[in-house]
């Protein structure tokens, strides 16, 4: 894997016996011990993910905020410094360029976290669509990023950081010292469980990662890989770019209505999203549970009475439920809880039932929890 990029914490993964795989041009840990064990640790205690492969693109200049407002499906101008907003970047056809989170740093500065596989594409797209003096910069290579996820995350964070992490609200961030290093810490994640994401300089990455793991071990913290990250996000029904989202898919088809504010707004793709909505979508994303044995996987056809009507976008075993779950694009009339269809597994029809998502409702007790549109965890990568 010599040609692949490595994250700042690479040596720590090797030292801890991770199995490394290629992902989005990076050599990344897919698992350390077992996907199932790491998944369970996140649901019951805590897991630490190296997500330094994800990209960060900064905007710093007089037109930074108006630029971001034109790029994202939700308003950014109303976001206060210290606030975070998840949304979509769309093309002129209303398809999704990427799903991202914007972090408002200051009056004229913010940055967005983008999917690893989309960094170059999104950077070029952002530059092309920015006003003059928006100060667009790709800071991905300078940044290490970790996700500390699970109910014990607060205790772990309190032990290694300078600030009162427990008081941080969901979708807020703060500048703290973590393991003696300057860091930006947010109450966000991609697992459906409570937790934090931690941004540090690349040079501090290995130290922060190791210190968190060493200090967190007493709280049940384990390193967790991309394998568990995927099973966790699937249980939470969080979309993964390239699976549920792509440049032909409207965010409304993906069920992301609450992250698209159309009224009185003029972001890129807004007109097309409105037009496609008014014309009526011919597919909708449905969560399903397999009734029979087997595992549904991405690209398996969905059929009704032997006729193909849709396709699975993500699927796999749910360690929490002990059943096979998945997401599929199907006709909107079928995408209603209680309806049934077949997933074609190696040519054999396996019955499935449409269910409400998220598949797993995880308690995320915290003070001052806001309900409403921000309650869904960030959904990137």
């Amino acid at each position, binding site marked *: 894997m010599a040609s692949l990029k490595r994250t700042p914490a690479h040596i720590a993964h090797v030292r801890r016996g991770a199995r490394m795989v290629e992902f989005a041009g990076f050599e990344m840990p897919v698992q350390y011990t077992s996907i199932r064990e790491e998944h369970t640790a996140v649901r019951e205690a805590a897991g630490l993910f190296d997500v330094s492969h994800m990209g960060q693109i900064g905007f710093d200049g007089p037109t930074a905020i108006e630029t971001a407002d034109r790029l994202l499906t939700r308003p950014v101008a109303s976001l206060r410094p210290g606030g975070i907003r998840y949304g979509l970047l769309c093309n002129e056809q209303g398809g999704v360029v990427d799903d991202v989170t914007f972090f408002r740093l200051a009056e004229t500065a913010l940055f967005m976290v983008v999917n690893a596989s989309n960094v170059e594409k999104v950077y070029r797209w952002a530059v092309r669509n920015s006003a003059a003096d928006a100060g667009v910069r790709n800071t991905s290579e300078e940044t290490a990023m970790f996700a500390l996820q699970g109910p014990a995350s607060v205790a772990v964070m309190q032990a290694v950081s300078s600030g009162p992490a427990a008081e941080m609200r969901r979708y807020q961030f703060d500048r703290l010292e973590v393991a003696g290093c300057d860091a930006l810490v947010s109450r966000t994640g991609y697992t459906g469980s409570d937790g934090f994401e931690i941004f540090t300089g690349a040079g501090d990455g290995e130290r922060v990662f190791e210190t968190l793991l060493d200090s967190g071990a007493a709280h049940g913290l384990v390193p967790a890989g991309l394998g568990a990250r995927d099973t966790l996000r699937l249980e939470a029904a969080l979309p993964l770019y390239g699976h549920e989202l792509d440049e032909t898919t409207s965010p409304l088809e993906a069920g992301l209505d609450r992250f698209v504010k159309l009224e009185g707004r003029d972001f890129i793709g807004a007109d097309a999203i409105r037009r496609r909505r008014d014309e009526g979508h011919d597919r909708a994303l449905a969560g399903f549970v397999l009734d029979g044995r087997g*595992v549904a996987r991405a690209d398996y056809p969905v059929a009704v009475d032997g006729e193909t009507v849709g396709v699975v976008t993500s699927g796999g075993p749910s360690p929490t439920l002990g059943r096979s779950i998945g997401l599929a694009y199907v006709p909107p009339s079928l995408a209603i809880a209680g309806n049934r269809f077949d997933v074609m597994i190696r040519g054999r029809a396996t019955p499935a039932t449409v269910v409400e998502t998220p598949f797993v409702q995880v308690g995320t007790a915290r003070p001052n929890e806001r309900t409403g549109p921000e309650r869904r965890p960030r959904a990137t990568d």
Partner: protein
Amino acid sequence: MADYEIPGDLRFSREDEWVRDDGEQFLVGISDYAQQQLGDIVFVELPEVGTSLARGDSFGVIESVKAVSELYAPISGKLVAINGDLEERPEIVNENCYVDGWLIAIGDVDPSEIEMLLDADAYRRYVADRDE
């Protein structure tokens, strides 16, 4: 190289299956190397008893959390039994791949095909070559 259990009394295929002479029949499973590579096994699909297998045929699939892998018959013969415990507890392949986690039993076997399989020493080298 990671540590893999490779029992000396078994024969192995290059598809990482083991074969054990059980007297009347031959038991087949996947090796410790294979189960470690796959990770958490969540589903095993096996054919009906009575199916005729030719060496190299795909006879089923084994699925881990992340991936689907084909199973290939290491020897020709007639499928005389499948491990029914795997339907409810596929994870026993991870826990004990050489005994409780056997997959199928094959009868009507041509002994010369057994001789074509790798012995434990050859299989250990074969694993090491791929596991730098």
